[in-house]
């Protein structure tokens, strides 16, 4: 189902000042297909979180000592990068609703730069981990950590590819204040990926 702006009958110049209101309620943000994908993602991670909780229940001492072995700075860095990238995507969507395509593209570029910070930090962290002996033989906590965080990294990669796509579409004027369901669907995916990270971060870097 396509996202329909309430301002579709208005010229952009009239629509812009009115768009600072939330969209109508009871809708499907983005598209139905994207929400099927998001629920598949949520189900996948729910199963992985179940593995985490069961492993934690069986090895409480190992999991309590686990966060000390990881870099809290890296964990906080991922969180800040993803949150800032998500904020930029939300601003891009607001700009598009106001009919400001160029501003929307600028916000998307910002989101991409901050989003790229995630794999860059991951690269640095993995090198740091390996230098400290945190490889696949480093115990159940580290194995669970790699299992969940690498899966999340794959989802971030999908998101970054999606972001390139929506930037191209925005740059070529394919979206407008009236029709931008593709951009909104991407935004939903990116925020869902963000939500999953907000759960992974305390489980591995904070909780003792």
């Amino acid at each position, binding site marked *: 189902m396509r996202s329909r702006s309430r301002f579709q009958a208005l010229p952009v110049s009239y629509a812009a000042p009115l768009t600072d209101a*939330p969209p109508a309620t009871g809708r499907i943000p983005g598209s139905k297909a994207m929400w099927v994908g998001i629920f598949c993602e949520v189900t996948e991670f729910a199963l992985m979180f179940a593995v985490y909780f069961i492993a934690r229940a069986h090895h409480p001492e190992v999991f309590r000592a686990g966060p000390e072995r990881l870099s*809290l700075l890296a*964990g*906080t860095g991922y969180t800040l990068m993803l*949150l800032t990238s998500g904020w930029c995507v939300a601003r891009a969507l*607001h700009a598009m609703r106001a009919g400001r395509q160029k501003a929307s593209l600028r916000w998307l570029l910002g989101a991409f730069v901050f989003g790229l910070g995630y794999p860059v930090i991951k690269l640095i962290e993995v090198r740091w981990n390996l230098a400290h002996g945190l490889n696949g033989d480093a115990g159940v906590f580290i194995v669970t950590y790699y299992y969940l965080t690498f899966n999340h990294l794959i989802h971030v990669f999908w998101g970054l590819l999606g972001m390139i796509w929506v930037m191209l579409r925005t740059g070529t004027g394919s979206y407008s204040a009236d029709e931008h369901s593709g951009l909104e669907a991407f935004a939903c995916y990116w925020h869902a990926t963000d939500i999953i990270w907000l759960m992974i971060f*305390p489980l591995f*870097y904070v909780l003792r």
Partner: protein
Amino acid sequence: MTEIRKLDLAWLGLVALSVIGATLGGRPDTGFGVTVLVALVMGIKVRIVCDRFLELPTARRGIRLAMHGFCYGMPVLVILTSAFGDTLARLTGALI
């Protein structure tokens, strides 16, 4: 307050909560109270992203309920696993 202003404040709040969360991670004590605090911070952050970024309050009821179930289920599970870890280990003993 405009929607954009709310969005910017939400982002600032999330950054602040992330720093608080990281501070909790640096603490040496491992009490149950800290676990509840960590779960609470997780729940608040997820709620802000759902409401402000994902615009879940405007979504259909089914989407809203499913996402809220996942988002609030996790902090609750964190607390339950911490409080009843032994029971969970006994119940899932056959799996490991």
